[in-house]
């Protein structure tokens, strides 16, 4: 026991020895330095690339596509047995699918689910530039349509007519057939909402500009953001799922309280 304690006790040697954590700190500083330098270098080159949507960006995107997407979508994005053709889907579709992490697909399933984004913004832009260079398609939405300052009331009416049957009137999402589902719209960025309406990803139908005008799409986004930023006046919304969660809550807690009270009333006092 004493031998184990021994190296801890002498204080004189402390000055001469390095702290046990110093090597870890040194490595961390070194990594931070190289990483930071690399990041600074790569962002400067990337911004130079995106400033001119040039053949170079498209070439960059083509390389990324060949490395990450071509297995399923084909080397020329023409589609294969395991993935659809991407000719004419446009930059909006790429930005939505890759920007929400749905693509590249992690595994086969009823539908591609939202997950951690696999590419940087520059890489997504390069992929989008490449795919939109193949054939014209829906482009990225203008910033003024995403400012969330439209008419929320009109947006709410359009949402109820066109979207609420799948996404729930409060945007909480809902089930479709055979394991597919309409995802919750809570926390989805304005840009991705807009792109989803224009491109109709997966099971979702397309809502083109003749069906819902760009200004109306802005209103719908305004409504969804209003819902996000204004809590339900009725108090805790239980996920806004309607009778399922509300009924479950009452069955368990409401009836539970009644049963507990009944047991207490009829039990003999001690």
């Amino acid at each position, binding site marked *: 026991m004493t031998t184990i304690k021994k190296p801890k006790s002498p204080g004189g040697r402390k000055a001469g020895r390095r702290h046990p954590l110093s090597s870890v700190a040194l490595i961390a500083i070194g990594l931070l330095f190289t990483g930071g330098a690399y990041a600074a270098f790569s962002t400067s080159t990337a911004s130079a690339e995106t400033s001119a949507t040039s053949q170079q960006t498209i070439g960059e995107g083509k390389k990324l596509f060949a490395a990450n997407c071509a297995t399923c979508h084909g080397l020329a994005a023409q589609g294969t047995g395991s993935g659809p053709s991407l000719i004419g889907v446009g930059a909006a579709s790429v930005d939505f699918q890759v920007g929400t992490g749905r693509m590249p697909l992690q595994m086969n399933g009823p539908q591609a689910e939202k997950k951690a984004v696999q590419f940087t913004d520059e890489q997504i832009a390069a992929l989008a530039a490449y795919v939109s260079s193949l054939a014209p398609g829906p482009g990225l939405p203008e910033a003024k349509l995403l400012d969330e300052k439209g008419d929320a009331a009109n947006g709410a009416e*359009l949402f109820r007519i*066109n979207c609420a*049957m799948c996404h729930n009137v409060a945007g909480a999402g809902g089930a479709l*057939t055979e394991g597919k589902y309409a995802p919750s719209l809570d926390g989805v960025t304005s840009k991705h909402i807009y792109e989803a309406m224009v491109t109709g990803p997966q099971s979702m139908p397309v*809502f083109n500009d003749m*069906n819902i005008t760009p200004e109306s799409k802005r209103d719908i986004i305004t409504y969804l953001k209003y819902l996000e930023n204004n809590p339900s006046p009725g108090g805790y919304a239980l996920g806004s799922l309607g009778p399922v969660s509300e009924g479950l809550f009452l069955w368990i807690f409401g009836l539970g309280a009644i049963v507990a009270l009944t047991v207490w009333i009829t039990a003999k006092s001690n």
Partner: protein
Amino acid sequence: MAKDDNSGKDLAAADSSGVGHEEAPAGTAVVVRDAVANPGLPPHRLRVTDLDPSAERRAERTVYTLFYLSIVGSVFAIAAYMAFPIVPEDPGSVRTNNLFIGLGLTLALMAIGIGAVHWGKALMFDHEGIDERHPVRGSDETRSRSVEIFQEAGEESGIGRRTLIRNSLIGALIAFPLPAVVLFRGLGPQDDNPAALLSHTMWKKGTRLALDPTGTPIKASDITLGSAFHVIPEGLQDLEHGKLEEKAKAAVLLMRLKPEDLNELPERKSWSYDGIVAYSKICTHVGCPVALYEQQTHHLLCPCHQSQFDVSNHCEVIFGPAKRPLPQLPIAVDSEGYLIAQSDFTEPVGPSFWERN
């Protein structure tokens, strides 16, 4: 006592049957002696409050504290009503107002209830008594006397003898509910045959398909592949009366598929236009709006009872309780390129009804 009488009778019947066994033959009810003896009531156990004076005082304190708490709750509710007024235009104020008034009232009522129950259980006189259940059957005297009373009443009122009075009373009782029938009938459509109303919608030859809710007519070229348009007949927005009734029948979902994906019935080949098809949005099960369109599988899902329709296969039912496919609206394109209806639906939309053929 009655039970004993019966068992005696049963035993006698078993003896007279001449089988000679102690038990009755199969099929004859025998009153068997209960194998489990009645354990009786458990001994009376005194409560802590009966034995320990300090526990009794504590219980008393609890009860009156609860009643005082109730007063606090009531005062709190009044204070909350004043402190958190409902501000128009601010739904959040409704929530705080309701929450605090509710908390105060809950405290006021719950404290009275819990206090009263605790008072009764812990402090009130703890006397155990047994109330025997009365036999359901009355005594023979009571029964025969009741029959007599009815007979006397019948004779004294003369209901059997005075047939005019009796029959007119029966007639009056039959006539009494008739006004209700007439009044309830007044809630339905008055001058029209309801079955005919259910069989026809606002669509007729040449009606343009328009966007819900604006009423803007739709051009065939506007509908891109994979689109789903929610459609009303043009002119529905301008209706003075019955707008909702007409919309409930005429709502249509317009979809565009690849023409090669459509498997159309031979007699309906001319009902679509370049892969654009229009189907009634009203479920044939109980009339919910079917609008959950999956553009890749071309399935339509009804959110109420999960009926599924296959749009590529003339909307036939592939799952769920619906029995008939969704009615298809025959469409065409007019000279200006707008989508128009060729006619009304060729069958009544929505759920079945009595007169439906």
